[in-house]
């Protein structure tokens, strides 16, 4: 069945998943449903301890068995040790058919590859996968499907009951023995625990794993003891050097600076750039450079930001420290400056539900004026692909891309026109992850294209002297440089689905086929 972005979703996948095809961003607006409720095992006896001495003991206490759903969060990024630590025990116990519900998986988790191959893990739900995990899924070695979800879409799937988490594992930089936990104050700080919040709210069993046990009460707690069943202390939950690194040096790559300048010039010429505007930007060199440039212009023009959202990095925190913004709303911290900035009285922790879930009564993304995003590919319909590499292999994450693009009044995607030898602006993206209806502007090193749906933006910037082009012109320039790429060769088997934030199917990912040369 063809969906709203023109992708043909096989009937058997619709049957297998019980899902519908994507029918547009606001198709479910006003939809009514009842949230699922977790099982609660009451703790009344004051003598009872929640502390358990090992992962094995806690798995047994939770009654782990074949076929269960285990959840994890990814605030420790490439420094994460929790997923591997828990899954090793699960594997050693000989358990099978585990459904992994992780907010994201990266190269730190390549130890899962043999567990995928031997059937310990048979289904994965995650924002994305990289490295070897992506490769084995694309090779068809995962028995079930990989569901690639946005941050908001993941919360939706948990809250709505589509995914029932049996055991949630929450890595906490600090926790007390009753389970109050926080992202700061320890030796492996990640700042905030936003992606774990829904897991704590909706899982039947909630396990906190920490390497820094503090005396009760660990306040302010980002996740409350009232939701936590067990606490385990381990040697190390993450590698601090890989959780949050020092702030990236501002880029000196002129191509990125040029794109950042184009982006900033666009932003300041829109009607949304006025006192009280809101803004979110990513972690790429150009995105960061555009935040730095924007801060300068805000100062010159005396314009103040009402709130910034992230995925935060130093340049956004600098805007707060310079008192150019009223507050920051934080779902994740990418560098040590951002982690440290969590202590600022106007830097607020928000849950992924508050951030981006389309199935609640209104999320922060809906109140965004600007979001600055990146993309692996953008096509002439403004569809973006941030998950599947141009070689057809799963290699990225949706993150908050589809959520913020759908919510923001002006969503801007920055990408060099040609990435390596691959045209980033193309006729049809390999896989659609964010629909073109959400993407307003594409900024490249060869010019800026505005989505024709946004005649208002075209009108607003027409005299600004920006290097405007149509998206087709950008595609043509890209192809004139690289040639038109041949389509990736896929097999028939569907190995993954790109889940839209509302739970419908945006696209499918098929097994990659060994490339065979043809004249």
């Amino acid at each position, binding site marked *: 069945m063809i969906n709203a972005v023109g992708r043909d979703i096989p009937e058997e996948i619709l049957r297998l998943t019980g899902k519908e095809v994507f029918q547009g961003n606001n198709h479910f607006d006003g939809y009514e449903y009842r949230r699922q409720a977790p099982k609660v095992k009451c703790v009344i006896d004051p003598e009872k301890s929640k502390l358990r001495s090992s992962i094995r003991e806690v798995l047994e206490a939770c009654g782990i068995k074949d076929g269960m759903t285990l959840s994890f969060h990814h605030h420790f990024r490439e420094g994460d040790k929790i997923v591997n630590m828990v899954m090793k025990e699960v594997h050693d116990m000989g358990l099978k058919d585990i459904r992994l519900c992780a907010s994201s998986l990266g190269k730190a988790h390549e130890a899962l590859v043999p567990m995928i191959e031997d059937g310990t893990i048979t289904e994965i739900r995650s924002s994305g996968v990289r490295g070897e995990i992506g490769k084995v899924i694309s090779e068809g070695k995962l028995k079930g499907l990989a569901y690639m979800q946005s941050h908001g879409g993941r919360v939706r799937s948990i809250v709505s009951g589509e995914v029932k988490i049996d055991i949630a594992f929450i890595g906490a930089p600090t926790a007390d023995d009753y389970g109050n936990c926080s992202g700061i104050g320890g030796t492996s700080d990640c700042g905030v625990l936003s992606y774990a919040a829904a897991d704590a709210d909706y899982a039947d069993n909630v396990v906190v794993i920490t390497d820094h046990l503090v005396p009760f009460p660990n306040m302010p707690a980002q996740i409350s003891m009232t939701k936590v069943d067990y606490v385990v202390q381990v040697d190390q939950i993450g590698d601090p050097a890989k959780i949050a690194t020092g702030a990236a040096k501002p880029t*000196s790559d*002129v*191509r990125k600076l*040029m794109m950042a300048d184009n982006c900033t010039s666009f932003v300041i010429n829109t009607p949304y750039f006025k006192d009280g505007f809101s803004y979110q930007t990513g972690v790429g060199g150009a995105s960061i450079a555009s935040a730095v440039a924007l801060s300068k212009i805000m100062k010159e023009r005396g314009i103040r930001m009402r709130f910034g959202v992230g995925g935060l990095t130093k340049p956004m925190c600098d805007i707060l420290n310079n008192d150019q913004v009223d507050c920051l709303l934080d779902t994740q911290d990418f560098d040590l400056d951002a982690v440290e900035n969590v202590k600022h009285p106007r830097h607020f922790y928000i849950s992924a539900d508050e951030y981006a879930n389309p199935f609640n009564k209104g999320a922060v993304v809906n109140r965004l004026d600007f979001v600055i995003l990146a993309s692996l590919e953008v096509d002439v319909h403004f569809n973006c692909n941030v998950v599947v590499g141009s070689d057809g292999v799963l290699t990225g994450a949706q993150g908050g891309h589809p959520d913020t693009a759908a919510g923001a009044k002006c969503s801007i995607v920055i990408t060099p026109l*040609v990435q390596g030898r691959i045209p980033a602006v193309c006729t049809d993206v390999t896989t659609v992850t964010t629909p073109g209806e959400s993407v307003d502007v594409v900024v490249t*090193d*060869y010019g800026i294209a505005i989505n024709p749906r946004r005649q208002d933006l075209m009108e607003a910037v027409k005299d600004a002297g920006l290097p405007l082009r149509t998206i087709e012109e950008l595609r043509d320039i890209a192809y*004139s*440089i690289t040639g038109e790429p041949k389509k990736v060769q896929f097999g028939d088997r569907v190995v993954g689905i790109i889940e839209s934030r509302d739970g419908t199917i945006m696209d499918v990912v098929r097994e990659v086929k060994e490339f065979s040369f043809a004249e």
Partner: protein
Amino acid sequence: MMNPDKKRLRRTMMFLNAQKPSLIKDPYIYKPDSLMFDLEDAVAENQKDAARFSLYHALRTIDYRGCEKVVRINGLDTDLWKEDIRCAVAAGCDVIRISKTETGADVKAVEARVEAAEKEFGRPEGSVLIMAAIESCKGVLNAQEICGASERLFGIALSGGDYTKDLQTSISGTGVELMGARQILIIAARAAGVQCFDTVYTDLDNEEGFRREVEMIHTMGFDGKSIVNPRQIHIVHEIYTPAQKDIFFAEKVVREIDSKKAQGIGVFTVDGKMIDIAFYDGAKRTIELAKASGVYKGDL
């Protein structure tokens, strides 16, 4: 017939290692006036033929979108320069840049090879221009002779690094060690009616210092500057952008001279200033600079 590009605008000439695909694939996006593909110092001795090969294919394949294509050949004291010229001319370059030029004879030697290559590869006679980089005290003292050595030569450029070595000093950042050479070169170039370009500024993080240096050479009369990083380009172009009042004045001068010429009047006043035909070229150049800088809205 003079090659019409001889007098083209050359505010910025960006150095690129001819062997690096990432550098030569699309440098035109930074909009320098000229691109200079280097076969000389940037390329290791054992990579010279590889660099030539990559340069040849790049020039044949890539549309450099209006940027002038200059090729810096190896020194005349090597056995590489003749083949460099054949390769560059065959590939379609616009200009051959002679490194370490010391005499008018150097220019003539290159001219002869360029002419032969044009014939060999079927390019129109005179289509390839020459510029001479001056990198030694001897070259500075022979600037006048060098400037007048060939009809193909559109200009000379100071190469400060090698020149200061020859002078037994080094680049200080103050410009004092380059002062004499700069003065001699610009005077010699103007006397011969050719262009003159200043040396590179390599302290990339010192934007303030770069800006000061460009302002200085602009005031001294240089046509432009050699560039080592694209982030320097917009600064040069900004400094070379004429002020609105100068553009209006130049426009009036051009229009008045055109109409007065028809009426047979040689000297007249514009905005209270005495004007004659000697102002014409300067005014035309101001309009051209304004166009290149994107600030000219008129119809001249």
